[in-house]
């Protein structure tokens, strides 16, 4: 379970998050939607401690992410993250991209790590690209590689930061399909996304973030069918 309580985050004088409260239960898929610059991505970075916070707290399975004694390297193993700019490691093959962290972070043997990597790459449909360097992969394939890389650490939670925003339109589908697959397998996911179709079909709950606050949260049927907040309605009218 991820508990986000009254989280505040500023970059200098600019307050990006102004008191976010959100609880994510295990097995739940939550989509976070909202305009660019509303603080959605920053929230994800705060959850795995890549960003500090100025107020409130975030608990992952009861462990305070920003606590003084928290071992972030260990905590992050439970929080897989997929970035907008897929960030594959260009100097490593697909297999090495995925096998590296299990080996050097989790201490798996070389053979074990390669086996995990092979399995995860097959999982995301890249079983035939094991020895290929990322530069030879399309954006969609690189993003699936990034998903496999995160999954190889066997995280309890997956954080997706606009995983399809940087992709050419024709490549969005394959990445969304992979995310759907994970959701159907029962993964706990927080997805910052601009894909309203995905948010509607796959999420258990959708949160609309506006000006650093959660303006409205509820099942997709509520958000997309009968939004209570006028701001939510206005935002959805614009993106449709």
């Amino acid at each position, binding site marked *: 379970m991820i508990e986000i309580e009254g989280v505040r985050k500023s970059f200098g004088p600019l307050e990006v998050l102004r008191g976010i409260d959100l609880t994510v239960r295990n097995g739940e898929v939550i989509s976070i939607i909202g305009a660019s610059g509303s603080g959605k991505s920053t929230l994800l970075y705060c959850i*795995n401690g890549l960003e500090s916070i100025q107020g409130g707290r975030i608990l992952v399975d009861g462990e305070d992410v920003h606590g003084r004694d928290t071992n972030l390297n260990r905590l992050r*193993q439970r929080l897989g993250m997929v*970035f907008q700019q897929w960030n594959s490691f260009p100097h490593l093959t697909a297999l090495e991209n995925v096998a590296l962290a299990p080996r050097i972070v989790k201490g798996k043997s070389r053979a074990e790590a390669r086996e995990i990597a092979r399995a995860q790459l097959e999982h995301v449909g890249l079983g035939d690209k094991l020895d290929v360097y990322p530069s030879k992969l399309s954006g969609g394939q690189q993003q699936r590689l990034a998903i496999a890389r995160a999954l190889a650490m066997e995280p309890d939670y997956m954080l997706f930061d606009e995983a399809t925003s940087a992709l050419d339109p024709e490549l969005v589908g394959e990445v969304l399909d992979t995310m759907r697959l994970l959701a159907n397998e029962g993964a706990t996911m927080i997805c910052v996304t601009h894909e309203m179709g995905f948010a509607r079909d796959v999420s258990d709950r959708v949160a609309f973030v506006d000006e650093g606050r959660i303006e409205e949260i509820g099942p997709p049927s509520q958000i997309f069918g009968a939004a209570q907040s006028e701001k939510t309605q206005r935002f959805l009218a614009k993106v449709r």
Partner: protein
Amino acid sequence: MDYTFHWRPVIRKLPDLLEAALVTLEVAVLSMVIGILIGLALALIRMSGKRSTVWFAVGWIEIARNTPALLQLFFFGFGLGAFGFHLSPYMIVLCGLSFNNAGYLAENFRGGFNAIPDTQYRAARSLGMSAIQAYARIIIPQVFRIVYYPMTNQMVWAVLMSSLGMLVGFRELTGETQFLASKTFRIFEYFLFTAAIYYGLVKIILGASRLIAWRLFRY
């Protein structure tokens, strides 16, 4: 033109010249190894932005890049000598070249680090890697490729620069040539021949560098 070339004395001393060429190569390689390690440290210190240490890195880099290499050599020879630290000619050249290499390489490394997107580091950390692991496994290997050819240039430069060793009494290739030439007065022949050895040395380094790059950088 009524100069008559006499090559025989030069040919007779060929083993001495080649041996001196090896000394040149040795001091250049060592100064590169030291220069890379210190240069990397200087680049990291400079990028850390900590005022208490940045001045040191900036000062080193500025002096190494903006003063004649010969004067840097003299510093380690006559400069330290004036304070009672007497280094051997070999150490003077090694220290001088390492100092110079470190300054130039630090700036290459800094450029290399800046060329790696911040997000690579974040991605590595998000997988649970420590900062040191992220640098060692993700960032530095990529920087290494970016700075590889500038580094090769610096290696060539180190070989050529080591000829300044002659002026502090170091018997590397140029010093040896000077020594032998002065004994036989076939000065033109000797230095022409030595120039050819330098040329060959540099070509070998460039060839080896290309071979290593081909083996190393498959992506």
